[in-house]
Each structure stands twice: as C-alpha cells, then as structure tokens.
C-alpha cells in the first residue's frame, strides 16, 4: 500500500504503533525535509525516535521540541503529531516556517515516554511515569520530569517510588531522559527547547527549582506574553505565563531548568488547554482545536529564536 498522510486521522487518538508507523509515513512523504533518527531505547527497549526537520547544512542551530513525557497526557502526543505534520506541510508555503527551516533544524520527539504511553493503552490509562522497576519497592516508574540534573532531589519532587512525582534514584537514571541529555549535549548547538505537556493552560520558563529569577527573565517573559496573546487570538483560550516557580510551585529536576542551565536560553514548557471538565481525558474532538491554537505560539517562539541568535 502506498503510504499517505492523507489517510491518517489527526482528530483521533492513536496507539504507539500507529504513531510510530506514521513517523515513517511523514518521512516518506517529505524525504528532502524530514528524517527519523533513533536517539536511544526506553527502559523496556522501545526505540526513542526523533524527527529531524532540516533543509541541509551541517550542525545548524537547532530547536528541540518534545511531547508526551507524561504518558497519560494524550492530547499532547496528538498535538505533537499534528504539529509535526504542519511543520512539513507548511515548509515552502508559510514564510515564517520556511525562513526558520532555511536557517535552523528542528528536532521533534513526539512520544518521549513510549513505555508509559504503551502502558496507558494496554493496562492503565492514567499512567504518568516511566516503567522502570524501583529496587526495593513494588511501585514502578519514575517521573521523567523530575529526573533531570537541575536542582535534582529538591523540593517539588518525591523520594517515594510510589509517588507520581518520584524523582528516581539519581539524575538521568531514566534512559528516556539520558538519551535526550546525550543528544542535546552531543549536538552542541541547540538554541531552544520546548517541552509540551497538558492540561492547565500555562506557558512557563525557568526556574522551577529556585526562586531566583533567570538571568534572561525579562526577555523570556516578554516572549511568553506575546506567545500566549497570539494563542488566545485563535479561540480565546487564556493562558497564564511566567517562571515555573511563580506560576505553579517549586518543581525540581525539570526538563526546562536542565536545558537552561546547559546553555539553552529559550527553554519553555507548555501546559495545553483545559476545558474544565475532562483533565487528562480530553475528548479527541479537542485535538485539532488544541493543536491549532498552540501553533501560533510555537511559531512566535521559534521565530524569536531565529531572529535573536546567540
């Protein structure tokens, strides 16, 4: 059968196998723009795939996007699929995305926690963590968004393996996290990282583990303000924004704090929309509206990164 993106239903939730098959479809449909690379293996030996959007060049400045590090946030992975397709479709059509991709690469990990995601489809729809076994405990999994080496072990993460925010035995103990760390540090030219979650309508930036404002606070805050305004212009969805610690609470060991402390200035985390009724069980009819409104905000950040080299 000929592979085609036109037969894929972006308005439906999909299993891990379906999404992984679709990655190949996207690559097949856009061979000169998109490639698939494997950056590692999950705890249960599933491949960790990243889509690379590149128009050429060597080790160009890059933007990292990830979705689905918390497996139960299904609208996040679904938004990732839609967004990756949009990136491919709009190159050569939309001047902004064309300009970005003519000078930068984009790396996109759509299912950042594949073991957890597969588990949400087979055994426990509300699973959040990885699936690694914890020595000495009957409780499984580590919160991969508390496992990064940025204030690791501090407040806002748990030392109990049974907690949903269990940080793990040591920083980067989870292969899902370590693989990203190795990739980004190995690349050496990643200028932005955007980690996408759901569901409380927020756009946040460092720090999460300490109350000290980030040195780039003002610029990050202004850019966040623009992004959420442009997001709201689509359907009127209102986001709050600010540093993680100001917006929600102290959270140690998070992705964006690690990225920022490792030289990625433009580090943001999204919390996608909340209809106020469904939480992680957002109906699939909400996928495309969610992705559609998120797109201009993502574009704002990516354009700003391109226009403010450092």
């Amino acid at each position, binding site marked *: 059968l000929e592979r085609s993106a036109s037969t894929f239903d972006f308005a439906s*939730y999909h299993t891990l196998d379906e999404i992984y098959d679709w990655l190949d479809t996207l690559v097949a449909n856009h061979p000169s723009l998109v490639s698939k690379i494997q950056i590692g293996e999950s705890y249960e030996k599933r491949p960790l795939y990243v889509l690379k959007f590149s128009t050429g060049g060597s080790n160009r400045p890059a933007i990292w996007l990830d979705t689905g590090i918390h497996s139960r946030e299904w609208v996040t992975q679904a938004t990732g699929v839609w967004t990756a397709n949009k990136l491919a479709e709009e190159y050569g059509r939309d001047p902004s995305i064309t300009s970005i991709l003519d000078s930068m690469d984009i790396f996109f990990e759509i299912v950042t926690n594949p073991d957890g995601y597969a588990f949400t489809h*087979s055994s*426990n729809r*509300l699973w959040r963590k990885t699936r690694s076994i914890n020595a000495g405990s009957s409780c499984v999994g580590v919160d991969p968004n508390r496992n990064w080496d940025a204030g690791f072990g501090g407040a806002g993460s748990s030392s109990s393996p049974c907690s949903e925010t269990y940080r793990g035995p040591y920083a980067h103990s989870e292969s899902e996290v370590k693989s990203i760390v190795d990739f980004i540090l190995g690349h050496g030219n990643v200028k932005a990282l955007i980690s996408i979650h759901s569901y409380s309508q927020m756009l946040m930036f460092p720090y999460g583990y300490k109350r000290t404002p980030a040195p780039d606070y003002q610029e990050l805050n202004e850019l966040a303000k623009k992004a959420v305004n442009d997001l709201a212009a689509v359907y009127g969805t209102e986001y709050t924004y600010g540093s993680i610690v100001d917006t929600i609470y102290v959270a140690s060991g998070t992705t964006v704090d690690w990225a920022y402390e490792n030289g990625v200035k433009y580090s943001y985390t999204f919390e996608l929309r909340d209809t106020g009724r469904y939480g992680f069980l957002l109906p*699939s009819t909400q996928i495309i509206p969610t992705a559609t409104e998120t797109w201009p905000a993502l574009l704002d950040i990516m354009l700003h990164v391109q226009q403010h080299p450092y």
Partner: protein
Amino acid sequence: EQLFVGDQVLRVTASNEEQIALLRALDEREDLQVDFWRDPTKPGRPSDLHVPFPSLQAVKIFLESHGISYSIMIEDVQQLLDEEKKTMMLARG
C-alpha cells in the same frame, strides 16, 4: 487492565495557605491513594484530585470538615474511559 469504576475527579479550591497545606497532607496519605492531576498551588486557584471509589467518602468528609470547597469534575472516570475507547474504535473503523 485497570478499571476506574466509580472513581471521581474533584475540582478543589483552597481559600488560604492553611487549606493548601491540608491538601498537600492529603497527598501524603498513602492509604487514600489520591492523585493530584493538578496540584494545589495558590489560594483561589483550583486543583484537581483523582479519588478512587473506596476513598471517596473519606476524602469528601475531610474536605467538608475543613471547609474546603469542591465540585465534582468527573462523575465516573471509567465512564469517560469507556467513551474514549469507543471513539477510538469507531475512528479506526
């Protein structure tokens, strides 16, 4: 497959820091097996609490006895999951 029959998600709004501390203490109670989908952060800002069916009565009594206001965001988690599964199967078809 784990089922969530009768589980509810409560939208809880703490009105002061003391109530937030009480909610955090609730999270520490391993016997209740509650799961904050959205953590308590600031007074007036809602948090969402997934409560397994066997703990519902105890959690509601706890909230009411401390004057913490709440509403039911999801009446029956399993019912929503069944609908989600049905929608996925229809989409595949």
